[in-house]
C-alpha cells in the first residue's frame, strides 16, 4: 500500500502550468528522487507536499488521509531547504531543539534528543555554535538534524547538497543514505544531479517541463529509458539514426554499416540509443574515426566521427592497448544493450 500518494497533482501560476498530471505512490521507508533540469517543477512539487503551495488540481494523501486539508505546521514533515534556512540567531542546538519545543517535548527529553540528533549527523561538540560560524557542510548537517529530530513521517530534501563542493557532496551522499537506511524515514530528494539521484535512491522520478517522464529504479531509468529525454538526461548516450527493413528476411535493423536482426514491432526510421560504455571496437560494425582520446584514470573517453554522426565511447582502462587519435575503427554493440524507438520527425 502506498504510504504517500500524489494523485494527478497539478499546479498553475496564472496561465502557466508548472506541474501537470503528477501521480506517484511512495512506499513506506522508500527513498525517492525527483530528477530533472532547472525549472521543471521539482521544488514546486515538493512545496505542495510540504504545504507551502496549494495544488491547483489533484490530491495528496499520507496514509490515506488527505494531506492538503492539514495546515503545513501540522503535517509533521521534515524539510531541508536548499539554502538550509537555519535560524541564524540560534545556536546549532537551539535550531535543532526548535521543532521539539513547538511539540512541547519536556526539557530533559529535548536536550537528550537534540544531543543524539547532532551526534548522528557527526556534529557532537558543536551544540553552541551559531550557523554563521559553521562551514557549508556543517550547516547542512544542522539542517538535516533539525528536520530529523522531530521524527518526521516524510523527509523532504530540496537540493540539500548543491551548495557543497564535489568531495564533501560525495561524503554527504553516503552519510545521507546511511542515516536514511538506519532510521528508515520515507524520503523525497529533489536534485538535478543524476549521479546523486542514482547513488541515493530506490526509485527515480525523472521530470521534464512539469511532467513525469519516467518512474523507475536507477538501473531501469538508466538502462531502459522511456524517452529520448530520459536517455539524454541520465548519463551520456549515443543516438544513431537507423532504419528497420521489414522487406528483408529476417527483418534487419540497419545503422550505417552496422546491422542486426530487427526487434519485433517497429518498422521504418528509428533512433538507436547505446550507452558509451556498451560500445566496443571490433572488426565489423559502424565505420568511425577517433577524433580525440581522453585519459580519465580508470577509463578512456573516445570521441569518434562515425557514419551516423558524433559518437562517444568509453572503454575500461584494462591495460590493453587502445586505438590512437586519427585511427579508423569499427563500432559494435550487442543488440540487447541498445534501445530502439521510432525516430521523431521522420
Amino acid at each position, binding site marked *: 500500500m502506498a504510504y504517500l500518494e500524489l494523485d494527478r497533482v497539478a499546479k498553475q501560476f496564472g496561465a502557466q502550468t508548472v506541474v501537470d498530471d503528477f501521480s506517484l505512490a511512495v512506499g513506506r521507508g522508500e527513498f525517492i528522487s525527483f530528477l530533472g533540469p532547472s525549472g521543471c517543477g521539482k521544488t514546486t512539487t515538493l512545496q505542495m507536499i510540504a504545504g507551502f503551495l496549494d495544488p491547483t488540481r489533484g490530491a495528496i494523501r499520507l496514509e490515506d488521509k488527505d494531506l492538503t486539508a492539514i495546515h*503545513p505546521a*501540522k503535517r509533521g514533515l521534515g524539510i531541508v531547504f536548499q539554502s538550509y534556512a537555519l*535560524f541564524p540567531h540560534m545556536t546549532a542546538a537551539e535550531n535543532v531543539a526548535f521543532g521539539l519545543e513547538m511539540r512541547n517535548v519536556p526539557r530533559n527529553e529535548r536536550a537528550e534528543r537534540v544531543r543524539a540528533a547532532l551526534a548522528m549527523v557527526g556534529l557532537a561538540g558543536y551544540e553552541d555554535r551559531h550557523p554563521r560560524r559553521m562551514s557549508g557542510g556543517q550547516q547542512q548537517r544542522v539542517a538535516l538534524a533539525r528536520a530529523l529530530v522531530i521524527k518526521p513521517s516524510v523527509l523532504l530534501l530540496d537540493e540539500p547538497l548543491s551548495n557543497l563542493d564535489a568531495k564533501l557532496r560525495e561524503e554527504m551522499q553516503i552519510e545521507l543514505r546511511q542515516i536514511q537506511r538506519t532510521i528508515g524515514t520515507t524520503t523525497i530528494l529533489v536534485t538535478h544531479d543524476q549521479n546523486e539521484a542514482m547513488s541515493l535512491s530506490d526509485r527515480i522520478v525523472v521530470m521534464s517541463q512539469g511532467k513525469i517522464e519516467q518512474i523507475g529504479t536507477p538501473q531501469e531509468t538508466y538502462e531502459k529509458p522511456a524517452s529520448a529525454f530520459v536517455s539524454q538526461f541520465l548519463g551520456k548516450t549515443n543516438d544513431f539514426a537507423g532504419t528497420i527493413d521489414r522487406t528483408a528476411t529476417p527483418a534487419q535493423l540497419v545503422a550505417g554499416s552496422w546491422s542486426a536482426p530487427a526487434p519485433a514491432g517497429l518498422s521504418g526510421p528509428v533512433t538507436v540509443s547505446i550507452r558509451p560504455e556498451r560500445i566496443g571496437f571490433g572488426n565489423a560494425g559502424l565505420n568511425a574515426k577517433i577524433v580525440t582520446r581522453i585519459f580519465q584514470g580508470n577509463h578512456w573517453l573516445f570521441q569518434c566521427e562515425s557514419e551516423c554522426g558524433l559518437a562517444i565511447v568509453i572503454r575500461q582502462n584494462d591495460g590493453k592497448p587502445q586505438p590512437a587519435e586519427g585511427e579508423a575503427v569499427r563500432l559494435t554493440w550487442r543488440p540487447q544493450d541498445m534501445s530502439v524507438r521510432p525516430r521523431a520527425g521522420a
Partner: protein
Amino acid sequence: MSMAAEERSARAPWALTAPALMLFVGVLVIPLAMTVMLSFHDWGQYKGIEPVFILKNWREIATDPYYAEMFWRTFRIAILTTLLTALLGAPEAYILNRMSGRWKSFFLLVILGPLLISVVARTLGWALLFGGNNGLVNKLLMTLGVIRSPIPFMFTETGMVVALAHVMMPFMVLSVWAALQRLDPQIENAAMSLGAGPVTIIRRIIMPQIMPGVLSGAIIVFSLSASAFATPAIIGGRRLKVAATLAYDEFLNTLNWPLGAAVATLLLVALVLIVVGSNALIERRYAEVFR
C-alpha cells in the same frame, strides 16, 4: 622597495584624501571648534560678546533647572518618537516586504515619497489638520459634535512626538527593510514546517533577526529627533522649547551667542555619547550572530 618609493607610497593616501580632508576641516571641524570656544566666552546685554575664558554659561546650564527640564524634554520627545516609529515602522516594513511585486513598489514609494517633501511642509500639514479651532480635523469633529473643544495638538509634547514620528518614519522603515532583505526567504516556511504558528514565527524567528535593523533605525531616528529643529519650531513655537529651538533663540533673538553655543555643544556631546554608547552595546549584543 627603495626608501624613496616607500616614502612616496606612504604619502600617497594623504595626498589623495587631502581635498576631502580640507573640506572636512574647513566646514566641520573649524566651525565646531569655534562653537565650543564660543561657549566659554562672556556676554552682556550692552557689551556683547567678550572673548574671555569663563564657565559662566556652563554654570548657568548646570544650575538653572530650566535647562535641565528643557534637555529632559528634548530627550523624552526623542525617545517617545523613536518608540513610536519602531512600533509602527517595523510592522509596516514587514507587511511591505510581504506584499507582491507591484503593490510593494507602490507602497514603498508612498513611504519614501515624503522624503522628497520639505519637513516644513509636512509639519505644517499637521498644523492645518489640528491647529486650534481652525484645524480641519478639529473643525470637523466639533461640527459633528464628537468633541466639544479642539484636540490639543499645537504647543504640546504629544503633537511634537506625532509630527516628528511622521517625519522620521521613512528612516525606520528603510532600516528595518534592509534587515528584512537579509532574511532567508524560506525561513518562515522552515519554522512553519517545524510546527510554529504565525505569532511564534514573528516573535521567535523574525523579531530577533530584524532587531539590529530596528535598533540602528532607532539610533538614526533618536539622534535626528533630538536635534530636530523645524518640526519643534512649528509645533512648539517659542512656548514649548527643545534644545535645538532654544539654541536658535539664544543665537537669533536674545543674541546671547555664547549661551546658545553652550546649549548646542551640550546637545552634540550628549548625542554623540548616546549614539556611540548604544551602537557599541548593539554591536556587542549581536556580534555572535551577525558578523
